[in-house]
């Protein structure tokens, strides 16, 4: 069964450094999402992406964040200058054109020290 994959599973970085989280959505999916879950809290929507552009973003998704689909298979989330409060689990999700349900990846745990 096709699945969404994310790399790395765990990333440790120092405050102020740039990080790129990578996702490979399911191949025939057209809509892509990033969500964030701070430890012990709920999962929160960050951004949705369709047709090579952001379709919606939350208040969390400020100028430090960006998303890209660089090569038709990967979907990346970049944090330009990480802060301690960016430490969280980041989930990628995708869905096809005709279906509302999103398929989640296993997540990347980001630790900012």
């Amino acid at each position, binding site marked *: 069964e096709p699945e969404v994959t994310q790399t790395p599973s765990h990333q440790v970085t120092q405050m102020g450094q740039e990080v790129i989280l990578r996702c490979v959505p399911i191949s025939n999916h057209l809509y892509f999402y990033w969500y964030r879950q701070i430890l012990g809290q*709920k*999962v929160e*929507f960050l951004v*949705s992406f*369709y047709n090579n552009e952001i379709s919606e973003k939350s208040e969390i998704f400020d100028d430090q964040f960006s998303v890209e689909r660089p090569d038709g298979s990967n979907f990346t989330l970049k944090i330009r200058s990480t802060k301690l409060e960016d430490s969280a689990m980041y989930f990628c999700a995708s869905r096809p054109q005709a279906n509302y349900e*999103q398929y989640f990846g296993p997540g990347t745990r980001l630790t900012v020290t």
Partner: protein
Amino acid sequence: AQTVTQSQPEMSVQEAETVTLSCTYDTSESNYYLFWYKQPPSRQMILVIRQEAYKQQNATENRFSVNFQKAAKSFSLKISDSQLGDTAMYFCAFLSTSGTYKYIFGTGTRLKVLA
């Protein structure tokens, strides 16, 4: 804006018993979807069950069933014959059919199944 509320931060149940997790939501939309996701210690998000708002019949998936009360905006999850592997965090999620189909999650209920 839509909101999802899970009023039970933690629950426990004896193995083989039945437990019900509560979820309420607020929306002005008439058509939407509701989900329960399970998050074990690995933190993977695993779909447990889904419900389309336009369907009156409550969804069931093996030992998992929901009680969907549209007028009351309530969507509870019943787990029958609880198993140790059901120990996890459970999130209720709302999906709007307008906009970009983003999920709105509740704060979760931590369920512990006791041997």
